[in-house]
């Protein structure tokens, strides 16, 4: 299959007012052996409240795509529209603002600030963005089962607990888009499932878009849609 989605797909998503729209994204990495292309014209849309799973083998560029969408890196070519803002045109300063206020990120590991407690970590991005809401944070804390752990430091928590805190931090700011890069990659199956359930519940509750990169077909099946990244291009499934 080729580049863009079918006309029907396009129509459906367009009707739902896409919060995120990506077109023709290209990115390559330079090595001493020459430039290695990772993305070769990727495009898709994501509506508010919808969830999309990005699958593909290790090294296929899932993380790269996520980083580009999350305004963490620059594309070589293509456009990214997030909530009507054209990310590629924004200055460094403006992009930082977008990251602060509109995007929540959960990485595979090393998410939290090691010198802050769980509570402080939870509220950090919200405070940065000036959107701290203690009631919402309390609810998140409760729903994520973190209440007894609120005074602990990240190094005292297990991997699953840390990821839960990361999700709480990302959602505390009420982002438009939640990005997750292999969030359960370091967890065992049971913990991973629990984390996913919590994440999906909260995403549904907040109505933000959810974009997750994973190599697990099982996890990918739990999201609304799936696309596969192969040789730098997207193939819908």
């Amino acid at each position, binding site marked *: 299959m080729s580049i863009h989605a079918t006309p029907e797909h396009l129509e459906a998503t367009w009707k739902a007012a896409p919060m995120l729209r990506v077109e023709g994204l290209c990115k390559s990495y330079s090595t001493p052996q020459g430039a290695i292309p990772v993305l070769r014209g990727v495009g898709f849309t994501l509506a508010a409240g919808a969830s999309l799973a990005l699958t593909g083998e290790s090294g296929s560029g899932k993380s790269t795509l996520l980083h580009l969408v999350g305004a963490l890196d620059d594309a070589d070519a293509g456009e990214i529209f997030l909530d009507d803002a054209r990310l590629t045109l924004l200055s460094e300063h403006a992009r930082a603002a977008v990251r602060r206020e509109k995007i929540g990120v959960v990485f595979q590991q090393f998410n939290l*600030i090691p010198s*802050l407690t769980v509570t402080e970590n939870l509220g950090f991005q919200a405070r940065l963005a000036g959107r701290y809401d203690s009631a919402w944070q309390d609810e998140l804390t409760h729903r994520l089962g973190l209440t007894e752990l609120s005074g602990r430091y990240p190094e005292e928590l297990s991997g699953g607990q840390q990821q839960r805190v990361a999700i709480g931090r990302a959602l505390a700011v009420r982002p438009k888009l939640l990005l997750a890069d292999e969030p359960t990659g370091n967890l065992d199956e049971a913990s991973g499932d629990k984390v996913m359930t919590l994440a999906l519940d909260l995403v549904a509750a907040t109505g933000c878009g959810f974009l997750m990169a994973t190599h697990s077909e099982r996890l990918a099946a739990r999201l609304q849609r799936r696309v596969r990244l192969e040789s730098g291009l997207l193939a819908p499934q």
Partner: protein
Amino acid sequence: MKQTLWTLAALLSHWRRRPGNLATLVAGLAVATALWSGVQALNAQARMSYDAATAAISGGGARTLVAARGGLFDQDLFVKLRRAGVDVSPVLEGAARIGDKTIRIIGVEPVSLPRASPIAHKRKRADVLEDFFSGEGRGFAAPQTMRRLGLAEGAQPQTERGRRLPPLAALAEAPPGAIVVDIGVAQRLLDRPGALSRLVIADDAAPDDERVKRVAGEALRLVAADDESELARLTDSFHLNLTAFGFLAFLVGLFIVHAAYGLAFEQRLPTLRTLRALGVAPPNLVVAMACEVAVLTLVAGGAGVIGGYAIAQALLPDVAKSLESLYGAQISESLSLDLRWFLSGLVMAGAGAVLAAASGFAKALRLPPLSVARPIAWRAEHHRYLRRQAALAFLALVAAACAYGSGEGLASGFAMIGCSLLAAALFLPVALAGALALGERLARRPLARWFFADGRQEISGLSLALMALLIALAANIGVGGMVEGFRQTFTRWLDARLAAEIYFEAATPADARDIEAWMRMQKDISAILPVWRAKTRIGEGPVEIVGMTPHETYAAHFPLLEAAPDVWTALHAEDAVLVSEQLARRRGVGLGAVIGIPTSTQVWRARIVGIFPDYGNPKGQLRIDHERLKRYFDDASGVHYGLRIASDATARVIDNMQRRFDGKIARIIDQSELKGLSTDVFERTFAVTTALSTLTLVVSGVALFASLLTLSDMRQARIAPVWALGATRRKLAGLELMRVMAFAAVAAICATPLGLFMTWCLVAIVNVAAFGWRLPFHVFPSQWLVVFLIALCAAFLAALVPVARLARAAPTDLLKVFSNER
């Protein structure tokens, strides 16, 4: 800016978890600032005292007239000038002793004293006049001076010449170490009737140099208001030495700060990345880091400045004694500093903190919000690091060479030493890496190979601390070598110079004549050697002139660096002189040259027939024939003598003389006591230097300790794999200890030639430029051994705690390394 504040909060939270790291950072900056500001305080206090001494009389900004040749002039010059309408006020200054303490007697004339004079300011001049004229008069002294002399108000002490002072009264504006009296009283106390040392020009008088020249001819010389006081110029090199040391200590302290801050930065790198990922813009990040540095500066700098005050207060008595003995300068013994000193200390701390944190700021600015995990990239990084170090070391070496080529000045000497130290320090990690690579290649057993290989990873973390250690060790060897060499030379020289068994000073020339007559009849006294003194100026500097009679004592003992073959006959038969080493250097003259010496009446031209060493004398000195001294200098002192006596008769003769001539002898001392006093002065001078040098060593030891402590977590991560493969923790910890001590040993070995080089620089360039005399270059191998052992001890003590922690690390901690939950 909310963003910046929360970023700052996240940054500061790091210290909450690692208080030890913070303590190191603060302590490092505080100690560096303390040493620097302490030295600055000493220098500032001394400068204030020099200025205060002149300003107390004339009120800063006044110009004075002094004798063109230096010394005293007749007071009828004052009368003549006033009769010609020149508004001047007479001053007479001289030194006297009360008990065993030297004080300055300052005689002023209150009626003509300038209005701006602080003495006239506090008490109206009419009141001062009344004080001087009523009853037995008055002597004004600062309260601390009276305390130092142990005298109360109204006391009337006696000088060494047996003259009684008028009743003392406290006056805070009086200069330190001085007693202010009426000018007539001063003339009497100093036994200088009709003589003046200065004329102060009243500040609102229009300058009329024409008139002064017409009246006084060439007898007087105008000294402008902003001319550096004589004292300040003489003591310049002393203070420069202090400053150089303070700067060195500051630099070493900065190493600690850099190390601590750099390590903290590395540990916070993930946090910084997360912050960026969460949407903190780079400028905000840097601003937050800058705020952190600012707070650090205020806290650590403030503590440092207070510490500096304490250091200065502790060292001040020694410095004051040295200055008094060497230069006759009186400085106040209680520190009184102004806000400017405090602020400059903080500025220095801030500059140091910024310098140390600068590389961190640069990295933070360019930090991408992503970490692309490349775990073993450290090798490439390490190579880059070594190359950079080598390049910088080379640059520093080039700078040192340029400094050497650029001249003979004091600044270039210090620059050369500084650049060489820096070059060696920068090169040390490269040398260590090379040694470790060699070791790795030669080692067979796996643990041994790991020992060397892993050591290279440790270098970059410890490099700053080791560089600091190297510099401190080299400085210790360098300065210690110079001091010890000086001590040996000085002792030998003193033995030769103090050839007479008794030295005494009569109260007046008439008394001297009486004593001389008596001495000639004593069988015990085999030789009477008058050593009369006079003063003059050659070029811009004051010069002492000492007379010598033709006696075999001199030919046998007097040390000469260079001499014409017929030196002693020429000295007494012709117009010939001996010049001191520093005078020769300053005037650029050598053996056989002819110099013009201004005498009382003319300029006497004499040939140089010998150059003698004159250690510790800031002024130039000439030695001439005794008869010529009497003839050419009518203001020669006429009261100083040396006596040759059989050594067992010394005590008896002194006793006799004291009993017989009680009031006529101002001072009498025997050779061993005089040697003791001189050596004491020497020791005190270098006590300060030695103290600073030791402090620097301690500071570098602390740097090593701090670095090891903060590295210990990273070390755990490196040790874990080896432990998992079967080595015991005890063994691994022991290897760590050995490694650190090996590093320190290498540093000590590198420090030795560096220290020797530093000694040579100090002896051949710095000392010559600063003081004018050159010391022979000595080496002291025993000192190297001591320094080597000190380095090992320092390393051992510094590594003890971190290594112990490693040895007792719980297995769970080590295992966490693998589970990625760290």
